[in-house]
């Protein structure tokens, strides 16, 4: 019943429309910035490597695209270990 209510108010999470939106979001970001999923992986690894050379990283570092309108930016979130 809880599941039903969730589906009712959140919309169907697995609808083909949602899948289309998710796929489009990704592909448009890569199209606009002339990047690929592969390049993102490389970027992420190298950024983390550079940072970890100087400071100690803790937890899960993240490097993702954020979009505002037709512009994209890299969102780099790297938690550092405290003393």
């Amino acid at each position: 019943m809880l599941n039903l209510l969730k589906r009712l108010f959140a919309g169907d999470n697995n609808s083909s429309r949602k899948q289309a939106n998710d796929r489009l979001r990704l592909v448009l970001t890569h199209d606009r910035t002339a990047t690929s999923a592969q390049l993102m992986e490389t970027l992420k690894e190298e950024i983390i490597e550079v940072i970890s050379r100087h400071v100690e990283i803790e937890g899960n570092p993240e490097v993702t695209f954020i979009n505002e309108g037709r512009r994209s930016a890299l969102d780099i979130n790297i938690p550092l270990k405290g003393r």
Partner: protein
Amino acid sequence: MGEQKEGAQVIVVTSGKGGVGKTTTVANVSTSLAKMGYKIAVMDLDIGLKKLDLILGLENRVIYDIVQLIEGECTLKQALVKDKRFPELSMLPAAQTRNKDEIQPEQVKEICEQMRADFDYIFIDCPAGIEQGFRNAIIAADKAIVVTNPEISAVRDADRIIGMLESAGFTDIMLVVNRIQSEMVKKGDMLSIEDLMEHLCIELLGVVPEDKRVLISTNKGEPIILNEHSIAATAFNNIAARLTGKEIEFPTFEENSFWNKIRNLGRNLFPNK
């Protein structure tokens, strides 16, 4: 491209992907404006794959084409085909037996400049693709209309075209979404207008619902805007009116209304219904 020149506004209608309804949009928006009394010219730049003459039902009246005009075989006046049903509408036909590389952007620009003084709006029907034909079509335009369908490959191509138009200096780029089916959107099986706006981030000019009557009127060579029963006709007339600066509200696309939630509840309780 921002500055307003003397005379006609030149509007290119483009999409990237073929088959989304560029020519249908050009034909119906231009006839709608001509019916309102504006002086309209339509220019078919899909050289080698012309369609506009057929969609407008003017294929038997074509004598000269744009390539012959450029090569000096006829005058502009001779090349323009007047529509007898809409005296304010003229069409400059594409050539069918040539190809897009045979004309240059500068030549298209020159023809447009010659035409500006005699018309209120000039519509350019752009070929699909991003090559020479696209460059020919955008060179003289002040504004652009991007036509797309609620379908991922069409949206991806539209996004690429918008990027190229922005790089070319266009600041006035408007979106027409063609062939939307609100029932499918409600069921979660089609991208909605809101989805498309989120992805493409440009001004919305029109939403044309799927309408079987469009094919029927194309078969006959009659613009759909003459059909009072057609929902697509209303949409094209609204687009034309918005271009003249009239504010016409969009129908609400919001699919999360109370009644839809109730309907969805029914669907979730009885998934096989």
